[in-house]
């Protein structure tokens, strides 16, 4: 192929014909348009007349130009011009497609695969064998996994980016085991790597190396931090050539538990800067709910940063005993305040007020007894999942709380008085802390030498004491005890919260211990030392595109490994240890993204999304159009344009040109029509009763749904005053739902779950009085919710995020049984299975003298069953049933009952509890009679 920058030619030698153009010019110029021969008896009168104009017979220049244009366009057209031509595949022998399948490649994953696809297509045409090698998933040593180009394409399409960076060193080792020569297409992710240059040189030595690398900078979102009460968001990028603005969104559950956007920020990279920082102010309630920040429009694990405890600020209620005025340093709360204020929202006040503020933690510092009402409230609060942290002190030691029997709000029974060691009036040395046992939450914390305990309250020995002790002194007496109380826990520190009894509150260990107890939260990434000895279990993991996935059953990760950076062994995600959460993000606070450095001679290229465009069609069209114009012009020149026949010819030429261009227009209009937003259809649907079904993506199923609603619509039309228009298939992701009274949702095993936005829309729809009919179409073999069929399982996962009220099988007096027909069963193609609707309120009572209870006001938002109603309703275009139901007459009867159920259903949706109100008719009539 001959290439002129953006345009290449398939058969460039045809362009030689362009040289003939001047000759053509001369020839054409000498040959004027052929005269018309016209029989005309009046010629006798013409003889002897002369043309006034004595110019020689020549073709006018503009006609010549037109013809030259036509010929030139034809020559160019036939020489196969191609816009943005693919570099032609010249090599032979094996081709290796090397893929940097890292998170950084994810944002433009599709385009880069397509670029490789084009190369593979070319390779397929020359019969080259191809090996696709993903750097994070190297093939076994000893040879290239060569296969045909078509197979390689399939393998390439199946590749997904990993959520961690690539390491090129193993690839170098692997290459050592391969001794063939090959050409390489390297789909680079554009980030610097230690061995990248070495690998590139090695590949160059094996054969031609082509590097495909998108020029856009890679962006990494760094973990969000809290600084001075503001959320600090920062991002880094690999190149700093141009100013760039990215939008960030903070996602998290709303109070209803549905994931949605909670915060939004804009980050601007200045020109020449690789870092961008912004701070946003968020109310604590909102901030605590944020689960992750992500860069809008860039799907990559690197552009998502998960929020963990560092973003959360716990509410800690501090309640201390009375302290003497002025003795601030002796106040039991002073050290707690100092330790907690930087990392938690500290509340102080009366206990009753504080519990109403629903704190995460309540700290009682040397408070031996509480008022009975406060005590009950506190107990209840702990049982619901609160953490009560108590400190000992002189008062607790003196009080008789928890002496005789175990106080619910103390983990252990206490012995009277406590003890003092190592003081002026006592013998023995001050005790130090014993190393934390392995099952202790404090396991792994380094114990400073200078911590001394001089006084403590002692626990009454008992069978549970050892189990409840999570920290002890060297002599085995408990320092910290803990017990669970329903969902919550009570922790007692056996020393005081001030420095009177021990030096513990003065030490850094105190803060770490509070953190381990999830009383306070860290302000930064934990270092390995802090995490020593802990085990973290992944809860959710990020994939390469930055999507969160349930981690499933995965082994826990030792805490010290959490800081070592992501990789196959530590995929990014949210890791949990008891109540604490640590986010492992791809981009750390100090991660620097540098552009890939290539050895000399390797120039990355990027075809991008520019597709090869074959221009020959357009050029030939231009030539044809020019020739058509030439027809008209020639007709004009020779005078054939006047007169009827001339006009007809001109019209034909114009129509011919129009026909050549028309298909292009038609196609363009088709494309325009394909846009999803069709307001006219929406308005039409709003104007009429329109039944709708959810498109599942299974064409066959959607057809049945449509035919079913069509059949039901016909029955409604024939039997009732409801006259629905043709049913509509709904894409719940994009379509407006509000105008449809009823959504029929056949549950399909493989149906993708709707997005959270779609769920929000569905919930709004349900709250607004809409109704969704879920049909598992499985005959509900094992009963509702058993999960015995794939559809049943799928239904449960699909419906989980929906606002669905408690359900019950349709009771006999439900309004659905009598909105139009009196029904006892609700068959579709299956029958006899229970159908579930919103349960009636427990206080529903049968009205006096009425056969029915006064049930819930309004329409059930969901109806769940598995009777495959749409199949029973479905009619084909002739109006005859599409599927058999049952056998013989009984089957037809069943179909009839299915239609009756459908009629009742639509009536129920449209009239609500109207039929329910009918039970009052006798009473109303009686009143009117008076």
């Amino acid at each position: 192929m001959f290439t002129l920058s953006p345009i290449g030619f398939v058969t460039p030698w045809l362009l030689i014909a362009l040289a003939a153009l001047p000759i053509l010019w001369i020839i054409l110029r000498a040959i004027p348009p052929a005269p018309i021969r016209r029989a005309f008896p009046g010629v006798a009168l013409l003889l002897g007349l002369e043309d006034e104009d004595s110019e020689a017979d020549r073709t006018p220049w503009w006609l010549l130009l037109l013809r030259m244009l036509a010929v030139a366009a034809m020559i160019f057209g036939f020489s196969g011009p191609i816009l943005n031509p693919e570099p032609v595949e010249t090599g032979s022998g094996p081709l290796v497609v090397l893929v940097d399948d890292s998170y950084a490649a994810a944002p433009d994953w599709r385009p880069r695969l397509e670029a490789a696809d084009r190369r593979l297509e070319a390779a397929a045409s020359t019969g080259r064998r191809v090996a696709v090698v993903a750097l994070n998933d190297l093939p076994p040593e000893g040879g290239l996994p060569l296969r045909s180009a078509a197979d390689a394409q399939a393998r390439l399409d199946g590749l997904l980016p990993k959520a961690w960076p690539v390491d090129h060193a193993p690839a170098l080792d692997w290459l050592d085991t391969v001794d063939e020569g090959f050409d390489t297409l390297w789909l680079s992710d554009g980030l610097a790597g230690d061995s990248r240059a070495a690998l590139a040189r090695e590949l160059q030595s094996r054969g031609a190396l082509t590097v495909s690398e998108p020029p856009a900078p890679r962006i990494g979102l760094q973990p969000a931090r809290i600084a001075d009460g503001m959320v600090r968001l920062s991002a880094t990028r690999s190149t700093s050539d141009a100013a760039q603005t990215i939008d960030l969104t903070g996602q998290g559950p709303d109070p209803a538990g549905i994931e949605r956007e909670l915060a939004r920020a804009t980050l601007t990279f200045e020109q020449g800067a690789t870092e961008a920082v912004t701070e946003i102010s968020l109310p604590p309630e909102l901030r605590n709910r944020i689960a992750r920040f992500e860069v809008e429009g860039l799907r990559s694990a690197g552009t998502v940063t998960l929020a963990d405890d560092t973003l959360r600020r716990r509410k800690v209620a501090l309640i201390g005993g009375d302290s003497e005025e002025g003795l601030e340093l002796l106040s039991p709360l002073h050290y707690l305040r100092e330790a907690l204020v930087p990392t938690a929202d500290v509340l102080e006040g009366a206990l009753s007020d504080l519990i109403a503020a629903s704190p995460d933690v309540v700290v009682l510092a040397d408070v031996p007894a509480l008022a009975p009402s406060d005590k009950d409230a506190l107990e209840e609060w702990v049982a619901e999942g609160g953490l009560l942290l108590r400190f000992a002190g002189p008062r607790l030691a003196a009080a008789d709380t928890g002496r005789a029997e175990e106080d619910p709000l103390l983990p252990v029974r206490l012995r009277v008085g406590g003890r003092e060691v190592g003081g002026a009036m006592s013998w023995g040395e001050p005790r130090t802390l014993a190393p934390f046992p392995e099952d202790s939450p404090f396991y792994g914390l380094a114990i400073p030498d200078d911590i001394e305990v001089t006084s403590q309250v002692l626990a009454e020995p008992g069978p549970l004491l050892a189990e409840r002790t999570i920290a002890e002194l060297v002599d085995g007496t408990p320092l910290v005890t803990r017990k669970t109380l329903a969902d919550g826990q009570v922790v007692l520190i056996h020393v005081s919260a001030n420095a009177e009894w021990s030096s513990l509150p003065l030490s850094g260990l105190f803060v770490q211990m509070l953190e381990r107890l999830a009383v306070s939260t860290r302000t930064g990434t934990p270092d390995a030392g802090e995490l020593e000895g802990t085990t973290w279990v992944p809860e959710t993991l990020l994939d390469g595109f930055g999507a969160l996935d349930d981690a499933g059953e995965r082994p826990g990760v030792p805490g010290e490994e959490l800081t070592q950076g992501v990789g196959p062994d530590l995929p990014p995600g949210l890791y949990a240890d008891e109540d604490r959460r640590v986010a492992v993000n791809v981009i750390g606070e100090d991660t620097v993204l540098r552009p890939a450095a290539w050895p000399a001679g390797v120039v990355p290229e990027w075809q991008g999304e520019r597709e090869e465009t074959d221009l020959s069609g357009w050029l030939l069209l231009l030539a044809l159009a020019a020739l058509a114009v030439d027809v008209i012009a020639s007709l004009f020149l020779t005078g054939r344009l006047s007169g009827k026949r001339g006009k007809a010819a001109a019209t034909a030429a114009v129509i011919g040109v129009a026909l050549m261009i028309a298909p292009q227009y038609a196609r363009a209009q088709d494309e325009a029509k394909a846009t999803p937003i069709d307001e006219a259809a929406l308005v039409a649907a709003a104007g009429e009763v329109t039944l709708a079904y959810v498109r599942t993506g299974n064409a066959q199923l959607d057809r049945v749904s449509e035919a079913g609603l069509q059949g039901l619509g016909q029955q409604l039309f024939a039997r009732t005053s409801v006259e629905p228009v043709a049913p509509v298939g709904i894409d719940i992701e994009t379509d407006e739902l509000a105008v449809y009274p009823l959504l029929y949702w056949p549950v399909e095993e493989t149906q993708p779950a709707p997005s959270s936005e779609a769920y929000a829309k569905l919930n709004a729809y349900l709250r607004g009085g809409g109704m969704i009919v879920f049909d598992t179409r499985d005959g509900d073999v094992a009963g509702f919710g058993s999960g015995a069929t794939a559809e049943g399982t799928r239904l449960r996962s699909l419906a989980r995020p929906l606002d669905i009220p408690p359900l019950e099988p349709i009771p006999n007096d439900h309004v659905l049984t009598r909105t139009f027909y009196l029904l006892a069963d609700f068959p579709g193609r299956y029958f006899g299975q229970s159908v579930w609707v919103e349960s009636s309120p427990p206080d529903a009572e049968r009205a006096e003298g009425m056969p029915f209870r006064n049930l819930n006001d309004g329409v059930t938002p969901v109806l769940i069953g598995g009777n495959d109603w749409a199949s029973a309703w479905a009619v084909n275009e002739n109006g005859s049933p599409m599927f058999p139901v049952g056998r013989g007459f009984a089957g037809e009867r069943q179909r009839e009952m299915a239609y009756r159920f459908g009629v009742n259903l639509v009536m129920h949706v449209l009239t609500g509890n109207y039929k329910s109100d009918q039970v009052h008719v006798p009473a109303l009539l009686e009143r009117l009679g008076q």
Partner: protein
Amino acid sequence: MTLPLRPRAEALAAPLPPLLAEASQLARGVVLGEHGRRRPGMGDAFWQYRTAQPGDPARSIDWRRSARSDVHFVAEKEWQAAQSVVFWVDRGQSMQFSSEKNLVTKADRAALLSLAAAVLLVQAGERVGLTDMGIRPMRGEVQLGRVAERLADKTPQDYGVPDVSILPRHSRAVFISDFMADPGPVEEALATAADRGVQGVLLQVLDPSEEAFPFDGRTVFHSMGNTLEFETRKAGELRDRYLARLARRKERLTAMAGLTGWRFHTHHTNDSPASALLWMYQALEGRA
């Protein structure tokens, strides 16, 4: 147009009153057949009574009239003599021209007009014939048949030349042509006719395009028989000069006709043939 020529001609002639030489007699409209000369002579119709003159044969005296008076009267009959009308219809190639598909050729129109006139004349008892028929004008249906047959003949020449081989003295003549050719032969024929005391009409049949010259662009004009050719690059610019030449040709023909007591008329093939027939009818009878 698919009907044979004669039925068409008769159909055209049907609505016209019989061709009578004199307007007065036409008004009376009683005499069908012979061509009264409004003067005494041989004939069947009574003309007038006159007193018998010496020399009148006795059997010419109308005794019934004479018995009512003292003198003898002779009943004179109106002179009734059949007139000869000869047609020259140009059957050259140029007459085969028609500019549009739905226009008849000039030859068609000329034949139709001439035969219609012949039908009328035969109905009126005149003798009709063609100048190039080889036989003298005769009356009767058979003659009409011969004329119609003869009109269907064509000559290979481009432009027809008037044939005056059969042109009886004091007869009437009708020349139908497009008169596009050299007018010399026409002039000679007219002179010959005038010498023989023949009067008549010149009917020029033209195609509308010959009158309008709606041509433009580079064109090679050729005659129907391809004997003449003329090329121009801008036919549109020739229009005015062509039309001037055509007008001069008409003037010349009119002048020639005036000199010899003939009448000249131009008929276009897109006009109704009835109007041309009416004109011819009137022109023939006006000079009776």
